Each structure stands twice: as C-alpha cells, then as structure tokens.
C-alpha cells in the first residue's frame, strides 16, 4: 500500500514538473556551445555525477539495497573498454557495452550470493564494499592491467568513432545523452512491473513475497541494470580523463560519488540524483575555488552535507518538493 501511494505521488510530481523539465532540457541542449570552457567542465561534472547517481538509485533507491561498492562496476567498465581499446584496437563505443555486460554479470554473481544468503541492510553494504576492494587489490597487483600505475588512453589522434574528442563539447553531449538515458530508464522502471515490485520489496520484503513477488529475481534485475549503467559511466570517465588507475576507478570514492547525489536529492525518486548533482557539484566547485590548494575541503563539505541531509531531510531535497506527503522509505525489517 505504501508503494502504491509512493508511485502515484511521483507520477503527479513528474507531470506537474513537465513544463519546467522541457525548458531545462532545451537549455541543456542549446546553450553549452556558447559557454566558457570552465562552465562546460562543471556541467559535464554535474551530469556525470547525476548519471552515476541515477545508476546507483535503481538498486539503492528503488530496491532499497544500499551498495557501498558500485566502484566495482565502474572499474570493470573503465578497465574493460580501455583494455579492449589498447590491446585489441576495439572502439570504446563497443567496448563499453562489453564492460557493461561484464559488470552486470559480476553484479548478478555478487547479488545472487548476497541475496541468496539473506544479507540485508548494512551487511549488504559491507559485502559490496568488500567486493569492490577485492577488485581494487587484484587490479593493483596485476601487471597486465597496468597495476598501480594505471592505464593511459592515448589522445594524440582524436576520432569520434574511437570515443576521443579534441574538445570538451562532444563529451558534454555524450554525458548529457547518457544522463537523460538513465533518467528515461528510471522513469520506465517506475512504470513497469519491476518498479512496483522493487518498491514492494523495499517496503516489506516478506509481505511482497507473500503477495507473489519474486523478491530475489526483482533485486537481481535491479542489480544487473544498475551495474550495467554504472560500468558505462566508467568508460566515459576513462575516455574523458584519458587515465584510469585502481584507486580512482575501484576505490571507495567512486561508490560514494554514486550514492551521494542520490541521497541528497532523494533516493527512490527519478529526479533525485539530478537535483542532488546540481546542488553538490557547485558547492564543491565553490569550496575548491575558495580554499585553493587545500585538498579535501570539498569532500569534507560533502561529509557535512550528507550528515545534515540525513538529520534534517531524510527524504532528500525531493522530500521538500513533495511537502512530506511521501511515506517514509521503510525501516528495513
């Protein structure tokens, strides 16, 4: 029943926000060519954050499974496409699909093991963190994947078909398309049987199962989708920054980057991650500008924001937009 109210509420807010979204969308498509380089970089960073958040949201927000280890999928995506590109000359456009499928397979394995043995709540968070850390340790110790030195993507000859661009603008449109795609998938999931089933599982798994919902199957579907999308983000990162290493791609920082905009914006809401990214990234940019040369100030602020949001806005920023009508996303049993 809680799930029912929830879906209706999110539909209503989605419809009423329709016009605003259309205007914002037009602005996001039309204005970037006229923006200065720095603004474009910030926008790319916002959309990248939003994308990772949207991918995390499917598992963490809708299915209520708080992964602390999405870096595993991000790293698999980044390493798969980059290695296929460096060693076999395969374009990352195809490599990213391979990375996504590999990440989804890993996600299904990790998810099956965790869900099959009944890991819930913090225990699921811990086991996902451990899986990601294991991959990081393996990457650090494997010469064939560059060990701790990482991999450099050669950028001397940019070519669109190799996912290498000379300017920032094409990257912007790629990440815009990816973020919109992830949002579209989220909206679709909300309306599909999967979405209803996930909410039912999140709110009360035993009741959902009694009502005939295949909880394990639904959570695994969310896991596969979430890990596939996160891996594509890994490929984007590798192509955009042209460098990956185990700490960057498999480290806990990436996992937190996916979770943070979603929690701040509102977990289990389609627009939450986007809203969260639009709030968090400028905060981090401003802090960095104000405290130049003081590494860590932005992440310190992230920690503070996370604590404040949990304490005062447990539903995230979307909770304000909804005037608190939404039932509290259940205390796990």
């Amino acid at each position: 029943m809680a799930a029912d109210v929830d879906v209706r509420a999110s539909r209503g807010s989605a419809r009423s926000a329709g016009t605003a979204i259309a205007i914002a969308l037009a602005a996001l498509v039309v204005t970037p060519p006229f923006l200065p380089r720095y603004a474009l970089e910030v926008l790319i960073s916002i959309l990248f954050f939003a994308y990772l958040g949207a991918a995390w949201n499917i598992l963490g927000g809708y299915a209520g499974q708080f992964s602390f280890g999405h870096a595993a999928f991000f790293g698999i995506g980044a390493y798969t496409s980059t290695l296929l590109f460096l060693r076999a000359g395969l374009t990352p456009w195809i490599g990213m699909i391979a990375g996504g499928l590999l990440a989804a397979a890993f996600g299904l394995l990790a998810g099956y093991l965790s869900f099959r043995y009944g890991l819930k709540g913090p225990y699921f968070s811990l086991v996902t963190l451990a899986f990601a850390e294991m991959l990081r340790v393996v990457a650090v110790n494997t010469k064939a994947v560059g060990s701790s030195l990482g991999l450099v993507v050669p950028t001397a000859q940019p070519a669109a078909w190799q996912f290498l661009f000379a300017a920032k603008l094409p990257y912007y449109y790629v990440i815009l398309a990816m973020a919109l795609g992830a949002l579209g998938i989220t909206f679709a999931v909300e309306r599909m049987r999967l979405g209803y089933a996930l909410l039912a599982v999140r709110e009360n798994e035993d009741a959902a199962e009694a009502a005939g919902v295949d909880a394990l199957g639904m959570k695994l579907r969310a896991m596969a989708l979430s890990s596939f999308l996160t891996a594509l983000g890994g490929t984007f990162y590798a192509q955009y920054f042209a460098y990956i290493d185990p700490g960057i791609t498999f480290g806990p920082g990436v996992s937190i980057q996916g979770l943070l905009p979603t929690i701040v914006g509102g977990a289990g809401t389609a627009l939450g991650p986007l809203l969260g990214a639009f709030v968090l990234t400028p905060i981090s940019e401003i802090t960095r500008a104000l405290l130049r040369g003081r590494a860590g100030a932005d992440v310190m602020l992230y920690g503070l924001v996370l604590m404040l949001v949990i304490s005062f806005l447990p539903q995230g920023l979307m909770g304000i937009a909804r005037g608190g009508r939404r039932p509290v996303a259940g205390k796990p049993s």
Partner: protein
Amino acid sequence: MTTGLLLQAAVSGVLLGGVYGLVASGLTLIFGVLRIINFAHGAVMMLAMYTSYWLFTLYGVDPYASIVVTAPLFFAIGAVIEKAVIEPNRAAAEHNQLLLTLGLALFLENLALVLWQGDFRTLRVPYAAVSFVIGDALVDLTRLIAAAGAVLMAMALFGFLRFTDLGKAIRALAEEPEGAMLVGIDVARIRAIAFGIGSASVAVAGALITPFFYVAPDVGESFNIMAFVVVVLGGMGNFVGALVGGVIVGLAESVGAAVLPGSLKQLVVFAMFVLVLLFRPQGLLGGGRGR
C-alpha cells in the same frame, strides 16, 4: 618459503592482531549498544593518532604517555559525537544511520587532510629500533608493547563491563534495551558513554601503534575495514570474539603477505570477510546477532 620466514610472519601477525582486536572491541561495543555499524571508527582512530603525533612532535610527550591525554579526550569526543550526531537520529532508518557515520568519516578524514595535508608522518621514538629474538623470530619492542597494551586494555574493558555497575548497565542495554529502560537505566546516557568508551579504546590502539606505524588522514580506513572483518568474524557484539577475530585476521594478513606477492595479502582478508558474511554472519564463535 622457509619456516623461519613463516614463523616471523606468524609472530608479527599475532602481535598486530592484538591491536586489531582492540580496535574491533571498540567497534563491537558501539554496535552492541547502539546497533549501528560505525563507519567513522577508523576516522576517530586517525584523529587520536594525530593527537599522539603532535603531543610527541610539539611537546616531546612519549606516545605511550599520551594515552593519559588521548583516552579521556576521545572518550569526551565520542560522547559528544553520539549526543550531537547519532542520538537525534535514533529513529532514522538503519541505512540512514550507516550513511550518517559514513558522512562523519568523510568529514573527519578530510578535515585532517585540510589541516595537515596528506603526507605520511612518522614519529621517531628513541627505542624504535630495539628488538630481540624469541626462538627463531625477531620481535620489535614497540610491536610487543602494542600487542600487550592492546590485550591489557581489552581485558580492562572486559572487566569493567563485567564487574562495575556502569558496565552492567551497558551490557543490560546491549542485551535487552526495553528491559534496561524499564529498570530505570538512563539509556541515552549509556549510549553516549558506550560510544565514548569505544572511541577511547580506538584512541588507545592508535597511540599504541604510532611508534611503528605512519600517520596520515586515511590511516584509519584500512583499520576500519579490518575492524569490520574482525567484528563480523568474531560475531557482532561479541567481545571475546573481537580479540580472537583480531588475532585470526592479523595472522591471515601477515602469513598472506609472506606467501603472496605485492599487496595481495589484503585479498586474503577480504575473501575471509565475504565468506564469513555470506556463510556465517553470526560470526565464527556465534553469540552475536548477525543479519
């Protein structure tokens, strides 16, 4: 691989395992009483290590003597954190409480990064190089003191919980929260005290290792993860389990380091963690509350 090398690894593993056990004791106490997995435990340890480091560097206070300052200081800091951050969110969903301590960890770690930069700092005590031979193994004095101090501290903690009224109140709250409230125990006060004691134990552990370990903003991270492994191994909320688990993890890590190349030793620890979480979440010794 000679037996001598393996023996050496086993000895240093057991010694470091004692420290893991103390870190994990604090974590398990906090879990037992507050039912939250404290992600900021390692960050608190890191701050305590910096305190010991600065006391030595600025005022020449021996790191072991610094415990006299850091233990009460971090008891107070822990109690304040509990009152200000955790207590107001008692009613929040379990995963939100986890995120709360994650936010706290991010905040503290990066506060240290802002204040003291990311350099690895080490303090040089005059007795750092003292070591002696036991059987075939070489044992550093500082590591031996750390292990002995950790076990002593853990035993003191154990005795405190078993034999004092306050300790009994803490255990009552961990076992039966509603019953504890019914018999008139001020549960909010006990929760703050438990968080304070957990933080003080990890501060002691930090001071004990500074003579042979480095200090950096992220030094607590690996100890935090290690403490999770230990706590899960020993059973959540199980004290003896934390000490035994600490020694097991320390052994596995050191022997893994001797046998495996590079930093693959960490893989052994994580693999153990995943296996225990999946197949025996109540811990190897049982008694705790898994799942």
